């Protein structure tokens, strides 16, 4: 994989391991992908597949002391984040590199005013010009929180779910980051509010031209926002494809399953499709392809060896024996 | 992981080494002009007129002088404020002549009026003085002139000397400042002057300049070579002795025998003993709980069945003596020939002859007031079980036991371990706890009750010392015949002092006597 001028973030064989009493767990196992400038990438997968750990690895905020990034490189603007000191990372975080957590109710500190929490990205990156409070109000305006002048002094518990999520997004975009990771930003919200929030994110993306990694298990969200999709399964990327290709010609059996499990408007179904079985336990990973036990097209070798990554098109690659050139 | 551990060990070692290299005398030694005496309790009052407990006496008497005091070396009574006594009308009147020249700390002379005032106030029931009852013997005090007064007794009172220790207070000062001020800042004519009292901490006294202010015949009063005497309350035994070891205290009394060994290892501590202190530990049989306790054979079984010498050897570590009668060594009437030597066979025979039914449990009660009570109780239980008794031990809190005793409550059990702090004259005790008409008597229906009561009353009125001693001997005979319980032992007084002071206990005294006579050696 060649780093070109447009590449903002590139992960090379990143492996994040948790050392627990029950044993080692590779939550992220040799993940490589890249994100271009201004690109919105969807990272899709079931819960527990390592999406969130991947994003925390990028932020270098894997929960300590159990978790550790044991291998790989994370290149951000061509600089390896793994080689940065803690202080350098802190300066990047909240400035060039930002993230939005999924549940605003727990992601906001209930004991501090929204304004205090909004102001922190400015305050700790020496970006305060004029009144910090005004900056926070402008930020709330930007994410369309009504009456920001009074709302800025409110506490999170006085905010509704949608408004909290907006405030959380505001914190993420305060310093117009180059990369924004949104970890299931709409999961905790009801459908109409979720749509509003997504619309907001789209607008902000256009305005700031930030790259976004949208982590979700909801393909509909991906379709609305993303240009490219990464499918993750049991700690590994199994398929990378542009959004249209992904919906029309999914390659990996897991991706196919995912798409078939989405109800489509106007197409009557008796019963919604679901992929049978459970994702493998992190403590007992199958030797071969991790999806093989649930895959209806699995062959013998699928159980023996992990499939190599096969490039189907320039921007579409898959890790599955079905496509392997042997 | 290993490196920080090693570093920690290193730091630990360094700190430890510093511990040992630093000279030992970081805590400053006691200042030279103060003598510190450690006591386990709080003085309940510094006011002579309101003394409630015997334990208040040693501190209060430092500030006051009395008519009679014990001679510091022999323990015999000698005149202090009183130059002479004259017994008139066969003991019904006693004429007292005071020394001239004695002065209160205010500078006023001590007169017969002050003596009368003090005795009247101490006898006044509203002051709650512990002597109020005993002073009822006095009908009136007549002041003849400034230095002569006559005590009028209702009847001749043989132990009249026992009433002469009261510390004389200044009437003039009392009337000037009122009872409130007097209570918090008393004035006397003693060797030491009151400075301050902090409840829970200490009482501080100052040596009066130029004391003694007059010459007393036969009493070697001297000038004291220190300035302050501090009586410090340290309730915990271990702490008190530790303070004696470090020199934070100069003098500590009532040391238990098992604590001596450790103190002896410290070359800065001197241990002294007195075997001439009133001390009597015994078991009372309580007939009102169960009439079987009146059985003479049962009582004798207990008396013969207890190995007193073993108690003295094992628990007192030899610091005491077996006692078989109702009077200790320091007391009038003590007879070393009375003995119930340990004899298990004899004890068993007496028990067989008694009305005690085998297997009936008898409750043995003890409180923490007697030193080492749990050990002693357990040992007694062993002895008595060996004889054939069934004994159940019961520990009571002191206040509860005191109330049960006063109310003759059956919950007190069949026997009780007690300690009599003692006095040198048995009269008060006899009349209170033995006279069958007394509210406090445990045995009220002796077979020879009338004879016994008559003897007690007679010895009170017998002014002839030899005749009185004979009466007391007869009383002791009846007591040893009756089932009143078993006396166990008398304990030596062990007291320790730092090597900067010297002090000797006055014989026959129960509480720290003559504390002012502590000498600073260095």
């Amino acid at each position, binding site marked *: 994989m060649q780093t070109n001028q447009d590449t903002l973030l590139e992960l090379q064989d990143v492996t994040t391991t948790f050392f627990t009493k029950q044993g080692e767990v590779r939550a992220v196992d040799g993940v490589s992908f890249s994100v271009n400038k201004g690109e919105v990438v969807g990272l899709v997968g079931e819960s527990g597949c390592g999406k969130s750990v991947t994003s925390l690895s990028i932020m270098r905020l894997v929960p300590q002391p159990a978790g550790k990034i044991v291998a790989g490189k994370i290149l951000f603007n061509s600089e390896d984040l793994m080689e940065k000191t803690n202080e350098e990372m802190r300066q990047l975080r909240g400035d060039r590199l930002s*993230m939005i957590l999924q549940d605003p109710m727990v992601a906001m*500190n209930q004991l501090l005013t929204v304004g205090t929490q909004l102001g922190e990205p400015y305050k700790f990156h020496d970006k305060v010009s004029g009144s910090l409070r005004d900056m926070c109000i402008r930020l709330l305006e930007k994410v369309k929180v009504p009456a920001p002048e009074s709302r800025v002094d409110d506490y999170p518990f006085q905010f509704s779910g949608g408004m909290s999520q907006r405030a959380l997004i505001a914190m993420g975009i305060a310093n117009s980051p180059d990369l924004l990771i949104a970890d299931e930003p709409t999961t905790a919200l009801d459908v109409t509010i979720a749509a509003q929030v997504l619309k907001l994110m789209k607008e902000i993306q256009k305005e700031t031209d930030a790259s976004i990694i949208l982590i979700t298990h909801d393909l509909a969200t991906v379709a609305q926002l993303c240009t490219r999709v990464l499918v993750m399964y049991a700690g590994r990327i199994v398929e990378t494809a542009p959004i249209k290709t992904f919906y029309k010609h999914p390659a990996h059996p897991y991706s196919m399953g995912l798409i078939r499990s989405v109800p489509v408007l106007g197409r009557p179904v008796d019963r919604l499709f679901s992929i049978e079985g459970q994702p493998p336990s992190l403590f007992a990973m199958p030797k071969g392809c991790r999806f093989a036990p649930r895959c209806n097209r699995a062959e013998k070798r699928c159980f023996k060896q992990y499939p190599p990554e096969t490039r189907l098109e320039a921007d579409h690659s898959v890790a599955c024996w079905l496509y392997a050139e042997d | 992981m290993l490196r920080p551990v090693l570093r920690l060990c290193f730091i630990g070692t360094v700190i430890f080494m510093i511990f040992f290299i630093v000279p030992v005398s970081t805590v400053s030694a006691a200042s030279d002009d103060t003598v510190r005496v450690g006591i386990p309790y709080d003085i309940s009052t510094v006011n002579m007129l309101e003394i409630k407990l015997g334990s208040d006496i040693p501190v209060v008497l430092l500030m006051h002088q009395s008519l009679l005091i014990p001679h510091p070396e022999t323990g015999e009574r000698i005149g202090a404020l009183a130059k002479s006594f004259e017994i008139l009308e066969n003991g019904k009147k006693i004429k007292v002549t005071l020394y001239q020249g004695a002065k209160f700390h205010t500078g006023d002379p001590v007169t017969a009026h002050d003596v009368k005032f003090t005795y009247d106030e101490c006898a006044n029931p509203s002051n709650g003085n512990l002597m109020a009852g005993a002073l009822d013997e006095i009908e009136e005090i007549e002041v003849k002139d400034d230095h002569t007064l006559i005590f009028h007794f209702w009847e001749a009172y043989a132990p009249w000397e026992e009433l002469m220790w009261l510390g004389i207070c200044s009437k003039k000062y009392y009337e000037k400042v009122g009872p409130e001020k007097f209570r918090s800042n008393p004035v006397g004519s003693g060797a030491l002057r009151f400075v301050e009292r902090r409840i829970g901490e200490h009482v501080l006294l100052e040596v009066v300049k130029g004391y003694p202010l007059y010459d007393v015949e036969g009493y070697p009063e001297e000038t004291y070579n220190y300035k302050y005497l501090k009586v*410090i309350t340290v309730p915990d035994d271990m702490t008190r002795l530790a303070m004696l070891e470090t020199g934070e205290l100069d003098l500590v009394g009532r040391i238990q025998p098992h604590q001596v060994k450790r103190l002896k290892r410290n070359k800065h501590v001197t241990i002294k003993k007195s075997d001439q202190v009133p001390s009597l530990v015994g078991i009372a049989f309580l007939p009102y709980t169960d009439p079987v306790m009146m059985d003479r054979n049962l009582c004798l079984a207990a008396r013969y069945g207890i190995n007193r010498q073993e108690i003295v050897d094992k628990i007192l570590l030899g610091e005491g003596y077996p006692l078989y009668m109702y009077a200790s060594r320091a007391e009038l009437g003590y007879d070393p020939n009375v003995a119930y030597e340990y004899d298990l066979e004899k004890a068993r025979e007496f028990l067989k002859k008694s009305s005690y039914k085998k297997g009936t449990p008898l409750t043995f009660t003890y409180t923490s007031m007697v030193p080492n009570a749990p050990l002693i109780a357990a040992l007694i239980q062993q002895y008595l079980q060996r004889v054939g008794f069934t004994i159940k031990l019961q520990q009571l809190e002191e206040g509860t036991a005191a109330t049960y005793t006063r109310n003759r409550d059956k919950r007190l059990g069949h026997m009780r371990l007690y300690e009599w702090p003692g006095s040198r004259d048995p009269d008060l005790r006899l009349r209170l706890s033995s006279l069958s008409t007394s509210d406090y008597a445990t045995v009220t229906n002796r077979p020879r009750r009338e004879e016994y009561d008559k003897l007690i009353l007679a010895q009170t009125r017998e002014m002839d010392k030899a005749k009185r001693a004979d009466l007391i001997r007869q009383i002791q005979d009846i007591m040893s015949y009756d089932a009143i319980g078993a006396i166990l032992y008398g304990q030596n007084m062990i007291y320790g002092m730092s090597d900067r002071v010297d002090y000797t206990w006055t014989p026959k005294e129960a509480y720290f006597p003559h504390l002012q006579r502590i000498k600073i050696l260095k």
Partner: protein
Amino acid sequence: MQGYILKRVLIAVFTIFAVLTVVFFVFRLGPADPVSVMLPPNATPQDAENLTKKFGLDQPLGIQYVNYLKNASQGDFGASFRFGEPALRVVFERFPATLKLGMVAFTVSVIIGLAIGIYSAVKPDSIVDRFGRVTALAGMSLPSFWVGVMLILFFGVTMRWLPIAGRGTLLHYVMPAFCLSLYPIALITRLSRSSMLDALKSDYVVMARIKGVPEFYVILLHAFKNASIPVITVIFGVLSGLMLGSTVVVEYIFSWPGIGRLVMESYFARDYPVVQVFVIFVTFVVVTLNLIVDIIYAYIDPRIRYQ
């Protein structure tokens, strides 16, 4: 808020009244009476009667109670049986000693407890954490009388570094304060460690780090503010304990003239007036501290404030 405080004050008054009533009767219906305890063994029945009358114990219990309340409402809490002085004065003469020792022990335990607790949570399994856990276990399980005796023997008698008992210099505080703060340190360490661990795992701490908030602010502003709510309950529990009960053993061993020892001695002497003043005072302090805790909660947690 004013209505709330008024309500709390009324509850406090009622609590004091209720506790006092219970103590008044339970104490007097117990097996021992003060006259028997106070009198020497050779006192006459006349003495006993006089003393009973003097203490006012000859009247029926109900009348004693009414009289006591009547006098107490006018600020007269009776005279101590033991000392003959007003009970109020006896208690408050001794209180400063307890207060001083308690404050020293309290400050030491809060500072050390929080420092070890927070540090252990931030760096789990570090040396400090391991050391802290062992110390906490020791502090929880070692009885203070044993610790006190060992301190006296080692630092007092063997090393001669510290004075054993009494007051006067700052050095006198070292041993009793240490002995007293051992348990609170353990308690605060354990609790602050566990609640800090919880707080540090939470999403708002991750979010704060995502925003690039420096670790110092993350720990103290975000994590500790949230973790402090349960810790404050314990801290104030410790404070009222230090002021009132847990000092008894330490005051006894180190001969510290505080109210813990006073109330113990007064109990054994059946000195009703002193114990009653103590009970009123204790209830008052506990109620006040609880009120303060509530106010602090409201100050820390806006959710309580806005209710």
